[in-house]
């Protein structure tokens, strides 16, 4: 790892101010992606701003059907929140399936979506829920937030502070995990909400997480695993790598969608 300077922020304002100082400053939350990347010398920020100690970015709260998750909430906290589980078990289950217990104890929801790894789980969850990503300066709809492989709508120095969404009537996430890394080889999040059905797919798209309109339409008319079984999945825009061909992933999208609909609560 190359040398770096460490700063610990105690408020969002302080973090944003610090971000304007060094010549290549990066935020660090759980560090489960960033520190690993720095060890490989694939990232070499001059300055790190630690967000783990910002009180306003912590915690999970539910009021009626409205959910607020602090950006610094760890995967383990999301997985074990009984308040969240009571209104949206789909997202709690998704968090429980990320990586391993040690990764879940440090990794955060804000870090995961800021990174927008094409095989990460949370992008599918938040896109599927139609969540709002709240930053230090604005609110961004999930539909506008995830813009491509490892790419988001975030500007330089912008901090994600919290995630908000209305709990759906039903939701679930089904993932076909890569047997070695546990990342999603394909993962599908389905949600039946007041505003319609949403189906978000991760791990499969060559441009990152995406919504599948065909499945959304089929499920809007008939919420059942059979309804998605017949929906065509175009493989021309799916990833192909040593783990799976695009055609194989297209089939996985359908199978994971069926499983998610069958499991939705």
């Amino acid at each position, binding site marked *: 790892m190359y040398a*770096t300077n460490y700063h610990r922020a105690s408020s969002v304002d302080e973090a944003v101010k610090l971000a304007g100082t060094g010549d290549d400053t990066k935020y660090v939350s759980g*560090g489960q992606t960033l520190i690993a990347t720095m*060890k490989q010398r694939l990232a070499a920020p001059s300055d790190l701003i630690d967000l783990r100690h910002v009180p306003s970015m912590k915690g999970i709260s539910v009021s009626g059907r409205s959910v607020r998750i602090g950006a610094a909430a760890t995967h383990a906290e999301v997985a074990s929140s009984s308040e969240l589980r009571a209104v949206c078990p789909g997202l709690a289950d998704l968090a429980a399936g990320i990586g391993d217990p040690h990764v879940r104890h440090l990794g955060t929801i804000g870090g995961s979506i800021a990174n927008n790894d094409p095989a990460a789980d949370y992008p599918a969850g938040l896109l599927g829920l139609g969540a709002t990503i709240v930053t230090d300066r604005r609110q961004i709809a999930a539909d506008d937030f995830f813009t491509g492989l490892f790419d988001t709508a975030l500007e330089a120095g912008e901090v994600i502070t919290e995630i908000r969404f209305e709990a759906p009537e039903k939701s679930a996430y089904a993932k076909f995990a890569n047997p070695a890394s546990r990342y999603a080889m394909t993962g599908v999040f389905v949600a039946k909400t007041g505003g319609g059905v949403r189906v978000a797919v991760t791990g499969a798209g060559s441009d990152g997480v995406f919504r599948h309109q065909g499945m959304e339409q089929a499920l809007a008319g008939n919420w059942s695993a059979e309804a998605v079984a017949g929906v065509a999945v175009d493989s021309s825009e799916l990833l192909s790598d040593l783990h799976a061909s695009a055609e194989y992933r297209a089939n996985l999208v359908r199978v994971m969608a069926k499983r998610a609909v069958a499991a939705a609560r």
Partner: protein
Amino acid sequence: MAKVTLTVNGRTVSGECEERTLLVHFIRDKLGLTGTHVGCDTNQCGACVIHMDGKSIKSCSILAVQASGSSITTIEGLAQNGELHPVQAAFKEHHGLQCGFCTPGMVMTAVDLINSKGTSLTEEDVRHGLEGNICRCTGYHNIVKSVLSAADAMQPGRQAAE
């Protein structure tokens, strides 16, 4: 250089290190606690697992400065008054180790797993809970056996609850 202060196995210690120093290297090289191992360069093997504020983490995935102010437990902190911790004793009893390289991480993971799952811990929970720990020798069966046996020993109500 940065100053790092930690409570390690109940004792407050501080030391200077570079800001890029990983917690595992601080523990091994500065504190001389070499029970915590480094088995990979990619955050995947779990040989370096310790507890930070009571939760299992990979000490190779965090800088020492990030951990400063926290309370950590390493494998050296488990045995009390010369008596092995029940999880350590169970690994010995059930042949849960061969070369022993992965063992400190396995034991620290198991202790957190048993403490957090309580009396409801099942074999499936153990196999799932060890997902972040790789062993090249044992084939895992005896590790799982050790963890379940330790859970019985630590929580007498466990079997009755099943």
